[in-house]
């Protein structure tokens, strides 16, 4: 897979193999693999009784909807690129306007993986010690993190 900045201030992703497409689609699977959804976890940070009930009733549903919209947007971008190759290429274009949705989706995926596997800020230096499923999850998390860094550097 190649990822490169565009002259317009966005990013272009060029998946080259079936595995690349698999990893990109895994963003959505990982983002939805949580036990407790992100909106509920974030909303649970507001505990003052004068505010908490309204937060649960009004803010958390908005957060949930916003996070789902971000996932839907990048799913559409990935599947559209996959469905309509051009001269054998299927680039995914991330414009400046789309960048936050991509960042959000990648963050949701990383948060869900972190919740499930507890990699921590400094994952073990020898990933070969991991069980295969955990190892693959760590590699995906590191790829998502690299893509986020690229977005932060070039598109946000």
């Amino acid at each position, binding site marked *: 897979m190649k990822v490169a900045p565009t002259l317009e201030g966005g990013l272009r992703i060029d998946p080259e193999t079936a595995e690349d497409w698999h990893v990109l689609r895994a963003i959505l699977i990982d983002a939805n693999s949580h036990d407790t959804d992100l909106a509920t976890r*974030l909303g649970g940070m507001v505990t003052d009784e004068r505010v908490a009930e309204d937060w649960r009733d009004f803010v958390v549903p908005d957060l949930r909807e916003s996070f789902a919209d971000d996932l839907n947007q990048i799913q559409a971008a990935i599947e559209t690129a996959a469905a309509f190759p051009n001269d054998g290429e299927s680039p995914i274009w991330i414009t400046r306007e789309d960048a936050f949705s991509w960042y959000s989706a990648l963050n949701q995926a990383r*948060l869900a993986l972190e919740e499930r596997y507890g990699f921590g*800020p400094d994952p073990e230096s020898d990933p070969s010690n991991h069980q295969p499923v955990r190892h693959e999850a760590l590699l995906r998390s590191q790829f998502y993190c690299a893509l986020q860094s690229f977005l932060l550097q070039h598109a946000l």
Partner: protein
Amino acid sequence: MPDTTTLTETKTSVSPQTPWNVIVHDDPVNLMGYVTYVLMKIFGYNENFATHLMLQVHQQGLSIVWSGELEKAEFYVQQLQFHQLKTSLEQAE
């Protein structure tokens, strides 16, 4: 007509409301550069100050990034949570 006058004096005591703190907590996922970016975007802080707050979050586990009236504090917490930062709201002691 009465030969005395009653004067009524009203004193209004205004005590400033206790402010609410917007607190960002550390988490193992959000990138340091992203936290700085979000603080600049939402509060309009300059990069130096936003970086200072981000480092507080990173090194001390949390940082009070804004204090003030409840309505604004709620707005800021909502914005920070939309950006997926672990953020809480507490009335200052």
